[in-house]
């Protein structure tokens, strides 16, 4: 990942009147957008776009880190498994049993990845793609809400 390229893009957007800029290259897509706020004064509509000065270095670095993190997610063939219900996330069918899946495991469409318990009912959550488990996003026993990301699978 070329951080210098990203820094350049952020600077271009920040120091110009461009509000949105999207760049795609080699399966990596980056989007940088300015926050737009508006207010009324003296009966006129005014608009503030971003800020007038280039931000301090630390702010740029934060933005760059955020974009890098986002960039990982927009990489091609990384698939998010999201929770279809509200409940409690469990890695295994029972407290003393083995986890359904671990990091690095290969799964196929329909493999059970975890259980989400809701109102005393255990709901098995199946994968909708085949591939490799790249990241497990929730700790065992933690509550999850609707559409909360649970797993990242690199689909094959």
């Amino acid at each position, binding site marked *: 990942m070329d951080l210098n390229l990203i820094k350049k893009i952020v600077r271009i957007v920040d120091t110009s009147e461009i509000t949105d800029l999207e760049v795609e290259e080699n399966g990596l897509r980056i989007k940088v957008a300015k926050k737009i706020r508006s*207010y009324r004064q003296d009966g006129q*509509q005014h608009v503030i776009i971003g800020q007038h000065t280039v931000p301090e270095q630390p702010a740029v670095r934060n933005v760059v880190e955020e974009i890098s993190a986002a960039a990982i997610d927009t990489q091609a063939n990384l698939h998010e498994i999201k929770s279809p*219900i*509200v409940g409690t996330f469990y890695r295994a069918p029972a407290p003393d049993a083995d986890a359904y899946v671990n990091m690095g495991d290969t799964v196929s469409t329909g493999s059970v990845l975890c259980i989400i318990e*809701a*109102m005393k009912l255990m709901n098995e959550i199946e994968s909708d793609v085949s591939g490799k488990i790249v990241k497990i996003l929730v700790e065992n026993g933690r*509550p*999850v*809400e*609707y559409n909360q990301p649970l797993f990242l699978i690199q689909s094959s």
Partner: protein
Amino acid sequence: MFNKILIANRGEIALRIIRTCKELGIKTVAVYSEADKDSLHVTFADEAVCIGPPQSKESYLKIPSIISAAHITGSDAIHPGYGFLAENANFSEICAESNIKFIGPSPGMIRAMGDKSFAKETMKKNGVPVIPGSDGIVNDVEEGKRISEEIGFPVIIKASAGGGGKGMRMAWSMNEFENAFQTARVEAEAGFGNADVYIEKFIENPRHVEIQVLGDMHGNAYYYGERDCSVQRRHQKLIEESPSPVLDEKLREKMGEAAILGVKAVNYEGAGTVEFLVDKHKNFYFMEMNTRIQVEHPVTEWVYGVDLVRQQVLVAAGEYVETLPSSPNGHSIEFRINAEDPEFNFRPSPGKILSLHCPGGFGVRVDTHIYDSYSIPPYYDSLVAKLIVWGQNRNHALARGRRALEEFVIEGIKTTIPFHLKVLEDRRFLSGNFDTGFLDTFEFK
């Protein structure tokens, strides 16, 4: 007292409930659909759980999602607000089975009052005047014709499981009866899955006057005066006020005591509203009872100095009602501001708020969930704000209402503010001399 309350609702009422919980030192949990991610009630609650996609059926009406959200957050009570699951007896029951206190009446009470013809029977048995009509469900046309002959035309045929103006048909004479009867049954079946209908005498040009009641778990029941909600469009209330221009002290007492009789008969717990129709001779007839807090509760709060949501939470926790009723102080009017275009038949106008200024000053209250640059989602009802004013008497309240509406700026969407300003020019409304037929002949230009 409860430790944590989950609010099973959205919009202005969710915010309203959160405010009172905070004042009571109770932690709050908001639930929200994906469309309400940026909603104010989500921001102000201590915790928030996303429970589903935008459609109400998949989120705010989905009982398992809400109970699950209560479990994972450790909430010990749920406040259902109004609409959605507020009068769903099943939900009240499931809360009880899940060891969560439902802030409202028990499933039995909801079922008793939710069955319109049963509610009427109960009231009648307890000496509350009811609208002359059939003794419960009418099963066939011949029976219907006989009853109509007895009570006299015009009659209205109503779905027993119904509400909101659906499954209702009028018959002005015997000729019209058979057709009206059959059509009402078909509509009732389609709308509520239950074709049962009952018949009532149609009271011409009545006023809609409702009594606010509050019952605790110790057998006490109180009434906090009345609200006049006669300004309605298609059975949807638009302006409400307390006290009613047509009630005097004596009539208020008669209606209040009648309401209490009915409420005590079912050992009612929580806040509720007993709705009456008042005819031009000041006879009042029981219409129905709503077993929830209502949209227009703020006008009662002002005139009686009571926080009704606070009382709901207190009685649900087993405490006694804190603020006892007194004589009404002054006059309060509520204007419902909807995201609708009154120039085009009130068609919905969702969209982004570009500029917002809420009126303020003495005697002005705005209950709203909107803010500058908020986008109103198209999936839910169109109520965006309630403007409630108080004055020492009705004229003061009217003048203040006009001033506050003129000060209210909501840009980016169409609202009913211009409509309310027009109503405030109408001589009938200003005189207090109007009934539920008022808007039928009101011209908005």
